[in-house]
């Protein structure tokens, strides 16, 4: 072997895989937080519905709590189910 790799320091960036730039509920960018939070990232995550729509977790939970009976996606009115990968 002429050359062997001893170590590698990799740098990667991450962003949300979302079908939109902004949260459909609070209209804030997914890159930033829901209006209640200060720090984006792990503290203010995104969640996806089976219908493929995506929101700040805080926003959709608040929305669902306001719907007494039919818990629907605010974008497509399908019944809301969390999409757990």
């Amino acid at each position, binding site marked *: 072997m002429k050359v062997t790799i001893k170590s590698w*320091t990799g740098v990667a960036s991450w962003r949300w895989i979302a079908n939109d730039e902004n949260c459909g509920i609070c209209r804030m960018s997914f890159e930033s937080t829901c209006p209640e939070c200060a720090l984006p990232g792990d503290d203010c995550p995104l969640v996806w519905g089976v219908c493929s729509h995506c929101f700040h977790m805080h926003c959709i939970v608040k929305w669902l709590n306001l719907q007494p009976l039919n818990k629907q996606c605010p974008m497509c009115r399908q019944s809301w189910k969390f999409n757990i990968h």
Partner: protein
Amino acid sequence: MAEMSLKPKRVEFGEIWNPLSRTVESLITLRAVDRKVWNACFSDVYTLCVAQPEPMADRLYTETKNFLESHVRDMLANKVMAKHDAANANNTNSRPDLLQRYYTTWTEYSQGIQYLHKLYNYLNQQHIKKQKITDTDTMYSNQTSAAGQMEIGELGLNIWRVIMVEYLAEDLVRHILEGIAADRASNGTLDSHRVQVINGVIHSFVEVENYEKVINDVVNNVDNEKTQKPDSLNLKLYQEHFEGPMLEASGAYYMIEANKLLQRCTVSQYLQEVIKILECETKRAEKFLHKTSLPKLRKQCEEKFINDRLGYIYSECRDMVSEERRQDLRNMYIVLKPIQDNLKAELIQTFLEHIKNEGLETVYALKGENIHIAFVENMLKVHHKYQELIADVFENDSLFLSALDKACASVINRRPSERQPCRSAEYVAKYCDTLLKKSKTCEAEIDQKLTNNITIFKYIEDKDVYQKFYSRLLAKRLIHEQSQSMDAEEGMINRLKQACGYEFTNKLHRMFTDISVSTDLNNKFNNHLKDNDIDLGINLSIKVLQAGAWPLGSTQVIPFAVPQEFEKSIKMFEDYYHNLFSGRKLTWLHHMCHGELKLSHLKKSYIVTMQTYQMAIILLFETCDTLSCREIQNTLQLNDETFQKHMQPMIESKLLIANSENLSGDTRIELNFDYTNKRTKFKISSALQKETPQEVEHTINSVDEDRKLFLQAAIVRIMKARKVLKHNALIQEVLSLSKVSFTPNIAMIKKCVESLIDKQYIERTANSGDEYSYMA
């Protein structure tokens, strides 16, 4: 008089008054009065006041008044005016005696009056005070008040005032002023007895109208001076007869003195003399005058020596400042301190200009690679120097401190020309970078320098530019692990937070957090590998950054075929990551990655640090010794620019040899088997870690974009709250919102308003051209 009784009885006035008046005379002339006699007289006053069938208080009052009047007239004629006839008036031998005679008489009389006041206590308390109360009653019913009687103490002093003072005032004041002038002429060495006399005469003008003070001084035997409020005093006589002429005479004297000084002094000497004179005059005022006159005389003194001579005082101001003649400046400050602020403007402005010139001189001649260090440190020197000077010379006067601030701000924010941007923000950020990077400087010193650096930072107007540079340099330090200490990094971010608030450092904090989160992630990943018995053969360390928080530049991905030596490791990590965090997309930033390679094909083996693209290139030589540029590029799918940028340092390091300077197409690249290096561990310098002018320009341009976004957001926020707003009011509010991070130019704000009108966030109000309203 043999028996004492409180019972009112019928009496003959003369029988009682005649002996009583003899005691009164003894009292007023301070002759000894036997205790028995005193007691008897005390009850005589009582007896008269309660006499039947009619009380004789009024008669007693009138008789006493007559007695006192004639007594004072007698004193005036025989004791005060004696030998002071017209013939002798100009005779200097008799001169000092008017004051002396008046003073002696007054001392006796005022003392006597105090005793008399006590003797007449019953009359004062029962007859006159009650009468005063009814007086106030009758005043409302609009009847003419009866006698207008005064308590005996007041009566006595009033008689003195009317008969003695009104008559003598002019002469007395003339003599007093001569006395004060003599004190001035003798440099305050007037003999103390004379001072006492003059002081006594002057104060008699106050005391004669404030009998309560005179009486109480004796009754309570305490000095009421301190507790007595000056405004409760009646100072009419004192002010009219004495204070006015005294101030006038002093003013005239000051003017002459000032003129004399001007003739023989330089400005510097003049200032010294004036300070001395002010001190002497204050002492003199304390020595002679009633305390209410002190500020007035001081004012007069300042007026004549300072306000009226400002032109002269300022005539050498420029030289004093530019030569930093501390003693002179100190004196000038002492002299100018009491006068109005706007009159000091010339000194302050000159001082400001001086600092500014020095600042510009030390900063704008700078050239070379370490310009940022020199910039900050020179500026700090200037700041420190003048801060010290202001403390030493100007007593930390806020006017001067703000001049220092203005001067520093104007030097730091000066643009070299209309077209060129101000680079201070960049310099200051780079200075921090130099400090925070690994170096041999000790931690305490770095900490101190970072703190000092904030001093300069605060003057920067374009704080957003600073932030851009700072975050880019911080990103480099964090990614390339160049930080001297994480504590120092965090300390600096906290300092910035303190200076500019949370918004300003939000992203910096997030970057910082990403690094520690990544460390945890790496540990977890390594444990995961261990648990599953996976050996990647590579020591892997990954940093995962939030795209929004880091200044990663263009997000456009450079095509790159990852060598298969890495691929497995990268795949493992990605799987692990996606399993841990769903809904996230990872993008590898290969231009920021680097690694260590072990080279075994040479005589010695070496450990070399290089960038990922360079690793990929050299890995290709595993199976062969020579390749063409095209082959390499095709295999790795690198574009020309990336290829050349990374190939160049490899050739320069001599690890690889090229048969042409043109690193493209058919140029052959060959592994250099004769390579030697004294070090067994080294690094291929990378083009990327050095800052290019394009990068700087890019940073500055991105600031402009951010500013526009900020301004638009600010305008929308303001308009949403206000609904309707005039143009100027809107501009003002925008300016105050953006103040923390930058000072926008008005044209830019206008452009943002225009674009918001186009986007229909706001509109012009129909009936007014310069008013906007918010469109919901």
